[in-house]
């Protein structure tokens, strides 16, 4: 479904992503793991086309080279992102956030998508009239996922969803991400919480200083001595 070849991202003199190659197959959950500053967010940003940095390399989605396309066109093809720290529309209500997320949909499809999001996150339905800025950290993340799901994405990019959340909420959100696969949505997730990411994903790529350090089956990576030592604290 998604193929990234030789991806480079540069912020001035800083080379954040160095020749990253990765692949995401339809129906998979793939995780990008690594320490802070490893290049995970830059990689996802480059795939979505929202980076304001010098980017080169080839990004192919469903057989089409999308490297030169704007984020707007990539979203229309079926890619959306749940950005780091949610970035919800704070001064809008929960419902309005979802309304903006589904701004390209006709009335019927909008209604269907809204019900789908509310079924995944009943708490959003309960708080639909509440201003987004008054939500808790976990609810904000739920809203960010819900907003991204309004456009019926084929590939959902999820960036550091667990950042700053308490463990119970992290579990809840990861359960929903796992459920998305059953609904036919492919997920590429970047995470610092290596254990959680490896538990829910089929395959994983480990980034270190902007380069792919290791990749493979998540279960196998969980048993890998280097990964255990560096990321799982074993």
């Amino acid at each position: 479904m998604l193929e990234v070849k030789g991806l480079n991202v540069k912020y001035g003199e800083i080379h954040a992503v160095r020749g990253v190659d990765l692949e995401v197959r339809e129906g998979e959950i793939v995780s990008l793991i690594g320490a802070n500053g490893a290049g995970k967010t830059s990689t996802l940003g480059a795939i979505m086309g929202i980076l304001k940095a010098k980017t080169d390399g080839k990004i192919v989605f469903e057989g089409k080279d999308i490297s030169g396309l704007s984020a707007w066109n990539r979203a229309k093809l079926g890619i959306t992102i749940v950005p780091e720290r949610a970035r919800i529309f704070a001064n809008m209500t929960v419902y309005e956030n979802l309304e903006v997320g589904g701004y390209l949909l006709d009335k019927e499809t909008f209604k269907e998508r809204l019900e789908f999001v509310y079924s995944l996150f009943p708490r959003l339905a309960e708080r639909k009239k509440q201003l987004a800025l008054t939500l808790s950290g976990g609810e904000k993340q739920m809203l960010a996922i819900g907003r991204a799901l309004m456009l019926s994405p084929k590939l959902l990019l999820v960036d550091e969803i667990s950042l700053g959340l308490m463990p119970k909420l992290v579990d809840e959100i990861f359960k929903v991400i796992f459920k998305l696969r059953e609904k036919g949505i492919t997920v590429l997730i970047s995470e610092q919480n290596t254990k959680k990411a490896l538990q829910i994903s089929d395959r994983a790529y480990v980034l270190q200083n902007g380069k792919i350090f290791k990749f493979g089956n998540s279960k196998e990576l969980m048993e890998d001595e280097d990964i255990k030592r560096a990321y799982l604290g074993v």
Partner: protein
Amino acid sequence: MTFDYFFTVLTFSNIFIVLALSLNVVMGYAGQVSLGHAAFFGIGAYTSAMLAAKFGWGYFPTLLMSILIGAFFGFLLGLPSLRVKHDFLVLTTIGLNFVVVAVFKYIDFFGGPYGIIGVPRPTFFGIELGTGGYALYTGIWAIIVILLMMCIEKIYLRYGFEAIKENEDAAESIGVSVPRFKIYAFTISGALAGLAGNLWTYQMGMVFPDDFSFSVSISILTMVVLGGVGTISGPVVGALIITFLPEILRPIQNYRLLIYGIIIVLVMLYQPGGLLGKNGILRNMFKR
């Protein structure tokens, strides 16, 4: 108060309703602060004045050209707005206002400081509109623009505008094209300000560079801020207040700018959303 006088003030209020709503598109909906809106108003006004007085064009072709040229310059200002934001955008728009006025004032082709005179009253099917007729005509345009705003609030444009107003990065993450929506906002805004310019020219019969100076931009801004940024009723009520208030308080008209300044400060302090914005006094009164 004679009828002619009343109709004249009514005409100005209609023109300012169109103008305030045009600024509201870019500022209220898309969140891009513009302090040089009089430039587009002037461009629309000068387009009609030049075509009518110098080249003898009829009313409707000049109306169309004012809207198109206003839209074109709105589009042009939309381009730098993709690169500059916030304070820098404010300075860019102020600069544009000064440049446009200077061009009108110092280039003879545009009539220089003496402006352009001799614009005839518009005629429809050979009948020249009187003061009452023109007030009605501008009123119809004000209603059309209000309806247009209601349409914008119903279609996807509103969501795109709201998204870029709230958070450009978040908007991009859900595939809202920030450049596209900014350009839409500035182009629509420029077109409507051009329309207001046309209505102004045919009301006055002449145009002068200082009719479109920076202080006029401040007046337009005051109308929007006073009424309620981002609402439809706010700029309408703001335009009515700012047009009728000086007529009621004629003796202190020389202190107009001072009064506008005080109004803006008071509104910012006590009614930051405007009289008809969120938690506005007038809005709450109507809710009851």
